[in-house]
């Protein structure tokens, strides 16, 4: 679970880590007010859950309150499209307005779960402001990593190694080491997956300030951190994703028109893939899950078929624990309610497939029942084109 920069900065502040002086604005007028209060050059930063804001014009310098208000007006209420957001972009409803820092030096500081090495890692980079992958590609010698495990923690000598690598000078090193200690403890205590301060700025006054902050929490750990769970921002979810969430359905909207409904994440991905393989464009990922109830299956179908972006659908159920007849009942109940005019191909196999097929055929609804996976995909794509 990603949180916004302003939320991450609040958490950093609570840890005793310096952040720029700043406030949140939700209207252009407020932006102007804040700029006036800060009385200096300010930076306006669009608060969206995506990187690449700078290049997309989501980070703007303003020299006076009028400029700040104008910049806020341009940003607020619009969608910002960055290299990472895809064409849909993300809506800007909040802007963080901060006093611009007098930057002497920018460095990178990150903490992450290293999947390959199965350890936690603290990463220091001599250049801040670049994406760590880019820095790693261009100047691997400018990056140093120290590995640790959750309960052992990052040792002081490890923090010293990173500080001396960065050539921060005595006083700043001490501060850096203190920050790193706090951050590594916080990381473990909060079930984080990724924490990035990029850049960590050394100001003209020799202060160490987190100019930007990114935090990504482990979804599986959230139930033990209710106060962090409340920080979740779901405002960018599509309607379908919102509805699906209520029924514990895993729904992700993408860009095509052929909707899919599948049980199992791997099979759902494979279904999207086979649609593409035969020249179609999947509209979404939808995993109804292993313990799906008839009601949830019904809701899944309803959400899918009522999505205006979806013009035809492929249902692929391989029943293991999930019974084909249960899913069929759910789909039929839903179809009776919404009377889909869109072509629907249903492929079922596994537990109770014969019963499932019977239920679909006896419903009198215009489903195309195809038992074979490949044939079902071909037909679904063909129908999506008509």
């Amino acid at each position, binding site marked *: 679970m990603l949180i916004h920069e302003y939320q991450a900065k609040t958490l950093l502040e609570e840890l005793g880590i310096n952040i720029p002086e700043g406030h949140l604005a939700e209207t252009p007028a407020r932006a102007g007010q804040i700029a006036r209060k800060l009385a200096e050059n300010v930076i306006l930063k669009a608060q969206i859950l995506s990187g690449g804001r700078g290049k997309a014009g989501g980070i703007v310098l303003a020299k006076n309150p009028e400029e700040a208000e104008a910049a806020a007006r341009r940003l607020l209420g619009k969608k910002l499209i960055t290299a*990472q957001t*895809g064409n849909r972009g993300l809506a800007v409803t909040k802007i963080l307005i901060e006093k611009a820092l007098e930057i002497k030096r920018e460095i990178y500081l990150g903490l992450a*779960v290293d*999947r*390959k090495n*199965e*350890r*936690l890692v603290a990463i220091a980079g001599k250049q801040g402001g670049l*994406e760590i*992958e880019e820095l790693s590609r261009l100047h691997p010698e400018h990056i140093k990593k120290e590995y640790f*495990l*959750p*309960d052992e923690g990052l040792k002081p000598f490890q923090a010293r190694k990173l500080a001396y690598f960065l050539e921060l000078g005595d006083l700043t090193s001490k501060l850096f080491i203190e920050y790193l200690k706090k951050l590594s403890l916080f990381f*473990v205590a909060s*079930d984080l*997956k990724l924490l990035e301060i990029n850049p960590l700025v050394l100001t003209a006054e020799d202060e160490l300030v987190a100019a930007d902050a990114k935090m990504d929490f*482990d*979804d*599986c*750990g959230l*139930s*033990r951190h209710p106060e962090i769970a409340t920080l979740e921002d779901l405002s960018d979810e599509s309607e379908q994703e919102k509805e699906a969430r209520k029924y514990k359905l*895993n729904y*992700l909207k*993408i860009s095509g028109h052929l909707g899919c409904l*599948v*049980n*199992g*994440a*791997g*099979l*759902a*991905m*494979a*279904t*999207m*893939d*086979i*649609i*593409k*393989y035969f020249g179609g464009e*999947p509209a979404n*990922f939808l*995993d109804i899950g*292993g313990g799906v109830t008839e009601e949830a299956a019904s809701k899944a179908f309803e959400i899918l078929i009522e999505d205006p972006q979806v013009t035809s659908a492929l249902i692929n159920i*391989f*029943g*293991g*624990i999930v019974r084909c007849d249960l899913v069929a009942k759910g789909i039929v109940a839903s179809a009776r309610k919404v009377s889909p005019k869109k072509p629907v191909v249903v492929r079922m*196999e*596994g*537990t109770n497939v014969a019963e499932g097929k019977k239920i679909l055929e006896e419903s009198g609804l215009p489903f195309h029942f195809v038992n*074979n*996976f*490949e044939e079902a*995909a071909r037909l679904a794509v063909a129908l999506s084109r008509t």
Partner: protein
Amino acid sequence: MSILLDENSRVLVQGITGKQASFHTQRMLEYGTKVVAGVTPGKGGQQHLGLPVFNTVEQAVKAEAPDVSSIFVPPLAAAEAVMEAASAGIKLIVCITEGIPVLDMLRAKKFLKEKGSLLVGPNTPGIISPGKSKVGIMPAHIHQPGSVGIISRSGTLTYEAVYQLTSLGLGQSTAVGIGGDPIVGLKFVDLLELFKNDPQTEAVVLIGEIGGTAEEEAAEYIKQSNYPKPVAAYVAGLTAPPGKRLGHAGAIIEGRLGSATDKLQRLQESGVQIIHNPARIGRTIKEVLSNLSQHL
């Protein structure tokens, strides 16, 4: 021969009195798996499904000598249940649970290393050696004994693959779900090694997906070891958008790492037969095996 699990394996079920555990233990027993005991703290001394229930794994081990444990314990207690099993000397632990916090898995894996226990999962349907034993939640009836080894990160996609193979008369030696999480126990590489040394297995199918580097590591191992048996692979998620988690906790393309395209390329370069159409997993293996027999 099969790997990891056979007709002699003695199986413990941790969390046995839970709803899911009860349902699946029943199915395991019906299949002929030697389930010997269960553990639910507080229910020790009771009988459940005709099996003795103990309070701790240590007690269960003393009484019934299981060598495999299956874990059906809720997410926030599951990693610790894994550690309990390892601590009691259980050598193979199959963790079905989905949703275990990543840091807990890091803790568990370190613990297991020190104890020398093997872990399959978490977030896995389990292991099945058809005709011999099943530990987990997979539908047994689609499986058939044979010579194809399966290693998969998925659940129902594995069943789809197995179904295709069985329909073509190609049985399976062992099918292992390594799980959909970012931090798992045995990986592709480990199981490829086991299959390599298993006389019953003639070919191996890898079913991968986006996220992480397990497939790339497998490709490297296959190349380095001059892997002596044919390997075919399907990697799900070619259509996956970057940065989004698709169902499984481990199924996410992060920055430059973990795309299906990269994985497929690396596997192909290592001589693995790539399956492009998931409806043709079975057919591809059949072709690979018949090509093999033609050359012999």
